[in-house]
């Protein structure tokens, strides 16, 4: 049961606007190339051949915050880095989402000390937390799919 059978002869599909927009948002989400620590290496593994993040329309990592709409905070956030991270977040255009990857970004992890921000949610609002130290690529993909599911629930009334 493909799309073609629904098309009929006229080439017209009727659907809701919000579904179309959400579909577009989820399938061409550009993450920011923003590696901080160990988790960045697993993020690179996720990008690479074995796990192939491009299956989710994410093969293009943008180093510039202006061109990206998903920030994957991969690694521990230090107090020195925190203002930078916030500035990068502020530079991203709306709509934007944040995945906090790994224990350090989510809650400080094993580093409960003076240098590390105990959870990146103190700096930027986080949509999805991914546990693990570092999370396996499958876990990160699960986090991304969870985010996709969330975005698909968004309603047009909430955007206004």
């Amino acid at each position, binding site marked *: 049961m493909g799309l073609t059978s629904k098309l009929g002869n006229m080439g017209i599909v009727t659907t809701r606007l919000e579904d179309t927009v959400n579909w577009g948002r989820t399938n061409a989400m550009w993450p920011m190339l923003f590696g901080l620590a160990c988790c960045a290496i697993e993020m690179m593994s996720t990008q690479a051949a074995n796990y192939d993040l491009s299956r989710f329309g994410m093969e293009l990592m943008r180093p510039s915050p202006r061109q990206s709409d998903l920030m994957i905070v991969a690694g521990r956030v230090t*107090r*020195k880095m925190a203002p930078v991270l*916030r500035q990068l977040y502020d530079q991203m255009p709306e709509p934007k989402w944040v995945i906090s990857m790994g224990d350090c970004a989510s*809650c*400080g992890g094993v580093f*409960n*000390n*003076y*240098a590390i921000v*105990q*959870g990146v*949610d*103190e*700096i*930027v*609002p986080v949509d999805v937390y991914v546990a693990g130290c570092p999370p396996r690529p499958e876990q990160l993909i699960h986090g991304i799919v969870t985010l996709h599911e969330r975005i698909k629930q968004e309603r047009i009334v909430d955007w206004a």
Partner: protein
Amino acid sequence: MTETGPVEMLHAAFPDTIQDVQTFRGDVTVVVDAAQIAKVCTHCRDTKGLDYNFLSDVTGIDYFPQEPRFGVAYHLYSMIHNHSLRLKVLLPGDAPEVQSVTPVFPAANWQEREIFDLLGITFTGHPDLRRILMPQGWDGHPLRKDYPLGYETVQFSFNYDDVDKHKPYAKE
């Protein structure tokens, strides 16, 4: 070459400067006068038979609450003779200050900056003594023993709401 050779040579060259020689598990530590460290390092580098041409590491140690409170350890290594030596200076807890060895071993440059940053030991004659790891406006020197670790209460299920109330969540 045995490890005692270099130490005896150093003793002969600096009879008054060397305060103590310790050997522990094959590591030789020579404690020298803080005012003479640059001179001793130059001697170690340039004298034939010593030839410590490589400075591996400079480390600061805080012996709080002992006095002298701080130690700075220099790990020298000779690629020619394949032997190593630790020089150490002991510094008072109040305004610790030691000569910089950066003019002798440029490798010490950043390592001394790190010690300055994390332990608050001043290196006189250092070309660029700024904080290196912590932000420029940071208060205190984190590796000192009287500096708190900065522990925050960990959120468990039994105190979840309690901690959550105080957590400074970010806004959009």
